């Protein structure tokens, strides 16, 4: 082996890497390559997760009888509560649909969910992304909304055959279009890189927004379904020297604790198609803004 030959090889690999990088950063052309590679490496996540899945499994197997009974009882009560709420919800949904018909607007879209389990956490400290155990075989697609029991969790950014990668809403590269539940003020909740904080962008200092306001997804941008809770405002700081108020919010979804998340499939349970409804929604709200960066 000679120095010079190795040097040329390094140069060639460097140029190839630079080309790959440029293409991968600026376009989605390499997505098929990524998803093939991610199918190859996904078992590594499963192996790395085994200590946790084993300990959970053992915990379940050897749980005391009393604990299980208590848990069972608690779950039974919860089911009862929730089924009562859901019965009310069905009535209200129908009523809402009727009222919307009266107003001449379309019905809201329905949605179906698929339960997915976390199988890994992307190790880079400043990226908040996780691997889940559902991939294109289960119908997952890039841009799909992911929620947990409390609120919006993130969106799918890469799909392999059996696994996919989800970017959490608190990732620095992520943003969700939201509205204040109380008065429909629209904004964009951008991630900060910390699990417990989102930042509202471009909030004029005169806006009516206070600590404790619940932010729900506005459905603008077409990625996230409308009306899911996203975060609760934790602080509003008005500095007269700055053009915008600094509003911070805490995500409602348990970003650092949820083991099970739900993939949302929007279905049209009545009539009309998805594109049209979204276009209409966007047209109705004049300052439509797309906040997500995939």
């Amino acid at each position: 082996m000679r120095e010079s030959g190795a040097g040329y090889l390094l140069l060639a690999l460097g140029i190839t890497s630079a080309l790959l990088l440029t293409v991968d950063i600026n376009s989605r052309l390499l997505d098929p390559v990524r998803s093939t590679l991610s199918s190859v490496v996904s078992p590594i996540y499963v192996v790395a997760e085994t200590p946790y899945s084993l300990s959970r499994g053992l915990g379940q197997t050897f749980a005391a009888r009393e604990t299980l009974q208590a848990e069972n009882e608690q779950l039974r009560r919860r089911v009862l509560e929730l089924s009562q709420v859901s019965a009310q919800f069905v009535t209200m949904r129908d009523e809402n649909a009727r009222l919307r018909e009266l107003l001449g607007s379309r019905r809201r879209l329905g949605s179906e969910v698929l339960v997915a389990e976390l199988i890994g956490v992307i190790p880079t400290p400043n990226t908040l992304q996780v691997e889940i155990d559902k991939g294109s075989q289960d119908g997952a697609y890039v841009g799909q909304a992911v929620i947990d029991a409390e609120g919006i969790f993130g969106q799918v950014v890469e799909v392999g055959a059996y696994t996919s990668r989800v970017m959490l809403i608190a990732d620095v590269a992520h943003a969700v279009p939201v509205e204040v539940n109380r008065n429909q003020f629209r904004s964009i909740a951008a991630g900060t890189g910390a699990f417990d904080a989102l930042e509202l962008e471009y909030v004029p200092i005169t806006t009516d927004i206070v600590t404790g306001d619940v932010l729900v997804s506005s459905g603008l941008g077409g990625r996230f379904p409308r009306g899911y809770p996203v975060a609760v405002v934790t602080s509003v700081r008005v500095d007269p020297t700055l053009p915008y108020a600094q509003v911070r919010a805490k995500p409602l979804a348990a970003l650092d604790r949820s083991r099970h998340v739900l993939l949302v499939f929007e279905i049209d349970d009545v009539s009309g198609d998805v594109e049209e409804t979204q276009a209409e929604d966007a047209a109705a709200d004049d300052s439509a803004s797309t906040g997500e960066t995939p």
Partner: protein
Amino acid sequence: MNPFNGGWVIIATLIVAMVLAVFHLPETLPQWLGWLRPSWIVLVVFYWVMALPQRFGMISAWVTGLLVDVLHADPLGVNGFCLAALTFVTWSFYERLRMYSIAQQAGVVLLMVLGVELIRMTVQAVARDGGFTWAVVLPALTSTLIWPLVAAALASVRRHVQVE
């Protein structure tokens, strides 16, 4: 007796390094502890290139890097380039590096991991809105501290399986 001259051992150690690279601490611990993770893959690649330069070349390093890109959700090509460059440098000086004491090797590891992490951070800053942070020094320091253990472990593996 020893199929592929023990090449599978190199692959196996790389897989172990990848598992360690994605293994995460319980969620109850603070997030910043993630910065203390040594660059396992860099350490393993460095060892094999130094010990068996004829077995582990730049192209193998580059392909390993592609897998690491997907594993770390980095833009494709970053880790490939880093590992190939690391292989090149190590390969150029492997005779001298082998003569070094373990502490001197650890010093080389510090520089290499720092270089790799800086390149990764720069690319991430360009690709997504990540910023620069001094925390990038931490993986280099922990890698340096853990190098004697990694080197000893890999050397004993190599002796037992007789990888040549």
